[in-house]
């Protein structure tokens, strides 16, 4: 009988001890972010929707349709066809099926021309049909500057926009 009462009191007391510490958290700031109203700042490296980067001067795609990204993609979600020979070779059509994409960044790492980027910050990709996640060349055509793995970075981590006329140089992995 006494043992039962003692255990009862022990359980009651440990609840009070726990509630004490829980109560303290009532007066601290909430750590949650109310998503649709407020959005958190994504880190530079957040892998989001693909973009085909452009040469900032001529506004032309850097892609040369070398097929490296399509071959390394584990999910086989990149499809493209090139036209032209030598330096004039450009993709005729370029499709990425984001239903299958695993966001592994392998296509970006393997690209020798810095032509594809996933550091775009476009992550709200919801749609009402399966085809809404299949992106073609026009949708993925970059409208400005997007950093990639090879883009040089400032010490603070922000991507440095190359000066006009610099073109795509090989700066090594800096991201």
């Amino acid at each position, binding site marked *: 009988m006494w043992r039962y009462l003692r255990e009862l009191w022990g359980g009651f007391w*440990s609840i009070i001890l726990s509630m004490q510490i829980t109560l303290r958290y009532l007066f601290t700031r909430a750590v949650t972010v109310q998503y649709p109203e407020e959005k958190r700042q994504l880190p530079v490296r957040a892998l989001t929707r693909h973009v085909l980067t452009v040469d900032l001067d001529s506004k032309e795609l850097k892609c040369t349709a070398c097929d490296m990204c399509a071959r390394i993609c584990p999910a086989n979600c990149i499809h493209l066809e090139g036209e032209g020979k030598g330096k004039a070779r450009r993709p005729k059509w370029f499709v990425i099926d984001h239903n299958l994409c695993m966001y592994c960044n392998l296509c970006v790492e393997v690209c020798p021309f810095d032509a594809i980027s996933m550091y775009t910050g476009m992550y709200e990709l919801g749609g009402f049909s399966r085809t809404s996640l299949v992106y073609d060349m026009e949708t993925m055509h970059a409208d400005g500057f997007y950093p990639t793995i090879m883009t040089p970075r400032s010490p603070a981590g922000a991507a440095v926009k190359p000066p006009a006329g610099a073109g795509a140089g090989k700066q090594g992995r800096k991201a």
Partner: protein
Amino acid sequence: MTTVNLHLQQVKERTAESMEEMWVNMGPQHPSTHGVLRLLIKLDGEVVRECIPYMGYMHRCHEKIGENRAYVQIIPYTDRLDYLASMYNNWAYCLACERLMGIQIPERAEYLRVLIGELQRIASHLIWLGTFGLDLGNFTLFMWCFREREMILDLFEAVSGQRLNYSFMRIGGLALDVPEGWLGDVKAFLQWFKPRLPEYDRLTTDNIIWQKRIQGVGILTPEDAVSYACSGPMLRGSGIRWDLRKNDPYGIYDRFEFDIPVGTRGDVWDRFWVRRQEMEQSVRIVEQALTEIPPGPVLAPVAKKLRAPVGDIYSRVESPRGELGDYIVADGSEKPYRYKVRAPTFVNLSALPVMLPGYLVADAVAVLGSVDIVLCEVDR
């Protein structure tokens, strides 16, 4: 005795039997089975007499997919095994490939792997503690553990760009170096995290209700644990000091000082306590790695098209759930000839039938929670 009487007697016997014992399905959609696991439980009133776990609802042909992919391409698939500790899957696979191909990875990559791996262990144990608390009705703990885990995920997102399936390790090192100032963020996180552990203790260890709920439940004897080939906190909770980081050091684990917590009785409490203390030990390892980390490259020079020499390799790491091993048979081509994953949770889960009998249904939830299963890894 006439045939009719015989039949009646049989019916009576059967009814009496079914009054005493009853087979009940727990799962596959039960909220506390942590995924799609079906437990067929024989109940005598409220006491579990027998338990048969049925797995395979999430089978995705992981190993067969691996046989049709090049060595680099398998890395994103390994993330999807144990999605709560993706870094360890990457690590186990990359380590196997590196040993098979004879690649020496740079010093900084080794340190970063240990650092990231131990952070991942903390995150995995946190999510285990949180969901285990949720199983036992402790909702506050669930919220707190997820808060700290989110901070670790933020760190990983800054490094790899992903929050769950990182695909961060490569054969020969890491995909990228950590961004500048990231190591300082890790230090700040540890400063925040260390005082949180006593807070969890107030809710769990010191709480008599929590103690009464899990002490002496789901006992797994050391003999059973060994004969069922359990590993990780399951084995250590039963009192056997076996940790691959000490017993078969991979990477640079022989350079760090840490203890291996072990239990004494092998009940749910011991498994909880082992994981709770492993978090402290992981913090110790991360702190040591932070002070010793050297500068340098993070990726060894490897060929674009990786070909492994003919041969086979079994290599294992100590994941938060136990011994995670990868077995690769190479035939000299770009793809592995055979690729096998030894999933720790699959093996640990097979010891469930010896742990459950004799306890109540409510305890079955606690025992199942203490195994720390991830069904994607169990079924592969």
